[in-house]
C-alpha cells in the first residue's frame, strides 16, 4: 500500500479517515464537472465544480436526491466516465481509466449473465495469478460471506435482485481493491440482510484498510457506516454540505448524537 508522507501526519487517535479537505488526500477531486452531450446535440450539465478530498482508509458516503449525479461522480472516480473539466487523482496520479485500484459495485449489479454466481465472483480473481481451483475455492468463500453458498451454481437470471446485488459485492471484494466504490450496494436487500452486510462491510473495511466511497439513499445507513457524509444537491449536481460523523462505532440508532445528525441531514436534504 502506498503511504504518502503527508498521510503519516494523521493523528492516530482519529482511527481512520481524514476530517477535512485540509488533510492529505488519497482521492482528490478538483473542480470536477460533468457535461453529458445528448444525441440531439444538447449539453446537460450534470456535475458542477465538485471539490472533495478523501483520505486513505476513509469511509465516505454520498447522499442526495435521485438524479443528482452520485452515480456519475462515482463512475468518474472509477475512471469509467470522463471528467468534462477539472481533475480527479488517486494517490497523486490523475485517473485516466479503470484499474488504478478501484473496485466497483454497480447500482445495476452488472453481473455477467453467462456466468454462474461462483464464476462471476471468480472473474474478480482474474488478475490474481491464482490457479483455477484456488480461485473457485475463494469465490465460494466470498459467496458464503454474503450468504449465498447455496446459489453458487445459479445464473444471474435465476437469482432475485438482492441475490444478484450480493454476488456483485462478492465479485468486487474478490478484486481486493484499495478503493471500493459502492453504488447503493444494499439498496435491494431486506432490513436484516442489510444490517448483516453493513457489519460485514465495516469488518472488512477495518481489517483490510480500504478506502470506501458509498452511495446510499438511507441517512441511517450513511450514519451507521461513514466517517463523513457528503450531501449533494441537484441541477446541476454539486456538494451542498459535508457532515463529519464523529460517533464511536458500533453506532446505535438510539444514540442521541446519531439522532441529532440524522435530523440535521434530513433538514438539509429536504430544503
Amino acid at each position, binding site marked *: 500500500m502506498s503511504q504518502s508522507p503527508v498521510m503519516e501526519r494523521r493523528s492516530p487517535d482519529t482511527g481512520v479517515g481524514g476530517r477535512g479537505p485540509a488533510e492529505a488526500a488519497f482521492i482528490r477531486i478538483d473542480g470536477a464537472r460533468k457535461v453529458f452531450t445528448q444525441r440531439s446535440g444538447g449539453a446537460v450539465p450534470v456535475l458542477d465544480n465538485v471539490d472533495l478530498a478523501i483520505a486513505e482508509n476513509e469511509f465516505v458516503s454520498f447522499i442526495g436526491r435521485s438524479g443528482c449525479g452520485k452515480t456519475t461522480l462515482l463512475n468518474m472516480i*472509477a475512471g*469509467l466516465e470522463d471528467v468534462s473539466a477539472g481533475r480527479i487523482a488517486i494517490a497523486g496520479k490523475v485517473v485516466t481509466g479503470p484499474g488504478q485500484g478501484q473496485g466497483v459495485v*454497480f447500482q445495476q449489479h452488472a453481473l*455477467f449473465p*453467462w456466468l454462474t454466481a461462483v464464476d462471476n465472483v471468480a472473474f474478480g480473481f482474474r488478475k490474481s495469478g491464482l490457479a483455477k481451483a484456488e480461485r473457485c475455492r475463494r469465490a465460494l468463500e466470498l459467496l458464503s460471506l454474503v450468504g449465498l453458498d447455496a446459489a453458487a451454481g445459479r445464473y444471474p437470471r435465476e437469482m432475485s435482485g438482492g441475490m444478484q446485488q450480493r454476488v456483485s459485492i462478492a465479485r468486487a471484494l474478490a478484486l481486493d481493491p484499495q478503493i471500493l466504490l459502492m453504488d447503493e450496494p444494499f439498496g435491494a436487500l431486506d432490513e436484516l440482510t442489510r444490517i448483516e452486510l453493513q457489519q460485514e462491510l465495516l469488518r472488512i473495511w477495518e481489517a483490510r484498510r480500504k478506502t470506501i466511497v458509498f452511495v446510499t439513499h438511507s441517512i441511517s445507513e450513511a450514519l451507521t457506516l461513514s466517517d463523513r457524509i457528503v450531501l449533494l444537491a441537484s441541477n446541476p449536481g454539486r456538494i451542498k454540505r459535508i457532515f463529519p460523523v464523529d460517533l464511536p462505532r458500533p453506532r446505535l440508532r438510539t444514540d442521541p448524537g446519531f439522532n441529532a445528525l440524522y435530523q440535521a441531514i434530513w433538514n438539509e436534504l429536504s430544503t
Partner: protein
Amino acid sequence: MKPLSRLSAASDLTLGLIGAFLAVAAWEISARTGLVDPAIFPSPSLAIRAAAERLTAETVADNLFWSLLRVFSGFLLGALAGAAVGIAAGWYRGFGALARPLIELLRPIPPLAWIPLAIIWFGLGEPSKFFIIFLGAFFPVVTAAYQGMRSIDPMLLKAAQTFGLSGVPLLLRVAVPAAAPDLATGVRIGWGLSFGVLVAAELIAADRGLGYMIINERNTGGSVGVIVVGILLIGALNLITDAAIGAAIKRWIGRWHGA
C-alpha cells in the same frame, strides 16, 4: 390464451400427431377417390411405392450425402466469416464504418440472384454452389453479430474494465458472450437460408444432390411419386438439422439466456 396454456407438452404433441395423421389420411383418400389426379399428385402410398421401385438406398444416400456436405461446408464457413466480420464491425469503429455500407448494399440481393455470376466465375462445379450457400449463411449472421455487438449493455463492459480487462481479452471474454444470443438467432436464420439456397442451386445446376434428384426425375419423365418423396425428404432433412441446431443453441446459451 388461457385454454391453450393449460395444455401440457404431451397433449400438444398428441394433437400435433393427430393433425399430421388427418392431413395424410385426407391426402390418401382424395387421391384414391379420384378427387385429385394420381398422375400429377399421387397418394402417399403410391408415391412411396414408386420411390421404392425407382430409387435405391444407395442413390438416395449418395444424393443426401452431397447435399449435406455442400450445405454444411458453405454454411459453416459463411457463418464463421459472418460472425467474424460482424463482431469486428461492431467492435472496431473504423472497420465498422468501412464494412457496413458495403454489407448493407449487398445484403438485399437474394443469394440466388448470384447464381449466373457464380457460374461464370466458378463454373458448374462445387465452388459455385459453395459460394451461394456461403452467402446464404453470411448475411444473416453478419447482420445479427453486428446487432448483437451494438446492443451490449455498456455496464458489462465497464464492469469488466474494472477487473483490468481491455482490448482483445475484453472482446473475447465479455463482448462476444454478451452478443451470443443475437449471434445464435442469426446462425439459425442463416442455416434456414443456406438450406433453401442449396436446394435451389441443385435444382438449377448440379449433377447430384437431393435437388438434382427431383429435378432429374422431372426432366427424364420419371415418376411424380419420386418427386413427392424427394420433396418430403428435403423437408425432413431441414426439420431435423434445424432442430439439432436449435438444441445446440439451447445447450449453449439456453440456461443463462432463457431462450
